[in-house]
């Protein structure tokens, strides 16, 4: 196990209990997540699969405290985040959760290193140790020669890896990824799966939302659940 990835979580886990999330689309009500209960074991890699519109991204948002469920509960590392005020939830999320979202990946006008250190700005910016660690992680994931280039110049696979490194900036207990292998070729899928396995082996809890069988069928995945119309299938 690589030293740069080592993580010692106390008891990291995320769970939702009887969670419901409804949206209004004009007069129509959409139930994205419907009375869903799910717990993710500490130090495991869970794949949430299902067709488009099945509620995977919404579930990921609820698991990470990014989306507040209409009803039910969501707990991150033992603490319910549903009733936390916005800034407390943001702080808790920043402390414990790293997000990698498919389309909200990197800020194109910033360099890869700047993107990787961006989560640290509200905490007073990156120290020299933070910069050194980010550089080491980027190099570890094959981005050593891309550190100072603008994110817009990266390939799809490089963007995903850089986004994962950014999600590790605060050394989170839980990593949530939305479609991390979409639009990637087989080589890059293998690299991303390898990364996730390394991070899981280092002690992190990982949840990926994906409809890519190259990912959810990979041996590194400990468990896969299927979501259909907001419910576990």
């Amino acid at each position, binding site marked *: 196990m690589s030293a740069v990835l080592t993580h010692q*979580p*106390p008891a990291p886990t995320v769970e939702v209990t009887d969670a419901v999330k409804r949206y209004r689309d004009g007069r129509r009500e959409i139930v994205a997540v419907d009375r869903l209960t799910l717990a993710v074991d500490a130090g495991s890699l869970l794949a949430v699969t299902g067709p488009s519109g099945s509620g995977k*991204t919404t579930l990921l*948002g609820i698991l990470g405290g*990014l*989306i*507040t469920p209409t009803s039910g509960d969501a707990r991150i*590392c*033992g*603490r319910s985040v549903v009733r936390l005020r*916005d*800034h407390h939830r*943001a*702080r808790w*999320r*920043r*402390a*414990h*959760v*790293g*997000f990698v*979202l*498919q*389309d*909200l*990946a*990197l*800020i194109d*006008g*910033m360099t890869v290193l*700047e993107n990787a250190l*961006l*989560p*640290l*700005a*509200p*905490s*007073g*910016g990156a120290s020299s140790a933070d910069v050194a660690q980010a550089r080491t992680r980027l190099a570890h994931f094959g981005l050593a020669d891309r550190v100072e280039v603008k994110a817009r110049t990266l390939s799809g696979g490089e963007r995903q890896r850089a986004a994962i490194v*950014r*999600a590790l*900036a*605060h*050394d*989170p*207990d839980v990593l949530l990824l939305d479609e991390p292998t979409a639009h990637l070729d087989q080589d890059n899928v293998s690299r991303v799966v390898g990364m996730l396995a390394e991070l899981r082996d280092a002690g992190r809890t990982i949840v990926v939302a994906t409809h890519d069988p190259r990912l959810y069928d990979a041996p590194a995945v400990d468990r896969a659940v299927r979501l259909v119309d907001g419910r576990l299938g």
Partner: protein
Amino acid sequence: MSDPVRRRRPSAPRRQVALLDYALGALARRRGRNLAIVVGLAFTTGLFASVLFLTSALTREYTRSIDAAPDVTVQRVVAGRPALIPESEGADLASLRGVRAVHGRVWGYLFLPSIGANVTVIGARGLDAPAGAIDLSVDGVPTASLLPGGRRPRATNEALLGARLAANLGVWTGDRVALPTPSHGFETLVVTGVFTSESAVHTADVALVSEHTARVLLGVPDGLATDLAISLRNPNERSVVARRAALLPGARVLERDGLRRAYALTFGARAGVLAAALLPTLAALLLLAWDRLTGLSAAERREIGILKTIGWETRDVLTARMWESGLVAAAGAALGLIGAYAHVFWFDAAGLSGVIFGWSALYPTLALVPSVGLGQVGAVAGLVIVPFVAISVVPAWRAATLDPDQALRAAA
């Protein structure tokens, strides 16, 4: 429970510096839009600041001049025209209580075709005073200082010239200058020195000569004067003396405080009207900025979504946006103030001086002495920065409170 963020809770200054750093990067990423706003703000600030600086410099000029003016000045008007006044008429006024002295002043304007402007010739009594700074206040000229190499006139047909006038005439100490006489001839004067003064007006057009030379140049016979200057021992007697002086035949009495009020009203009103006329420009710019700032581009929504997703709080996003707006406003205001300073004090307030001066035709060039107070700079900067940052608050708040869920769905 482990809480890495709590472990690395930052000091407020460190957090601000980090968010400022991010805001600087954001400024660079949106440089086109921000540059356009900076230019607009600089232009508007520059317009306001030019009016303010020019008015301030003129106020300083007339304050200096009026401070040096006699307490009371008595002129004679005949058929609506200024006329010479007998010096003997001052004798009665000199006996009034509170009056220190009354003396006739000999001064007037000579038009010099070579520079296309008037020279103010002043027959100065202070020229035979001891060496040092020349206190000519009794003649209506602020304290002047001789430049090195010069001396006071000792004889007739010698003159001291204001530095700017000497430069316009292309002469210096030791040179000669010919001034026209009423008999269509010329009097040749030796320039014995060049003086500077705190008042730009006086260095721009004043020639100090002996009283005798002034009478020759201006055609003022002995016993007559251009006006009577009354200096008071007790300023409280000013109105009494003025009322008494007004009884002289054809008298027009000017009190120093009255002059001060007249100048203040004139320049204050002109500057005020001009500033009021510029207000719509500021309003238009702020409206434009509001329009530009309220519409979040797709890239900005995406960026805010990313920030919220990676753990930025609403206040972090809001602070960064406020830094961004504040930097844009500060840059625009600073550029505008610098531009206004250069416009007024280096380029003679081109395009603006005619509106405010009114008498600019008298001076081919008038380099105003810079007079800018911190209060003025603060007022102009506040006039631009405060409204701009204020109108940035709402869009910044809207941006900062963007629900990450919305951002997620917008980007999905």
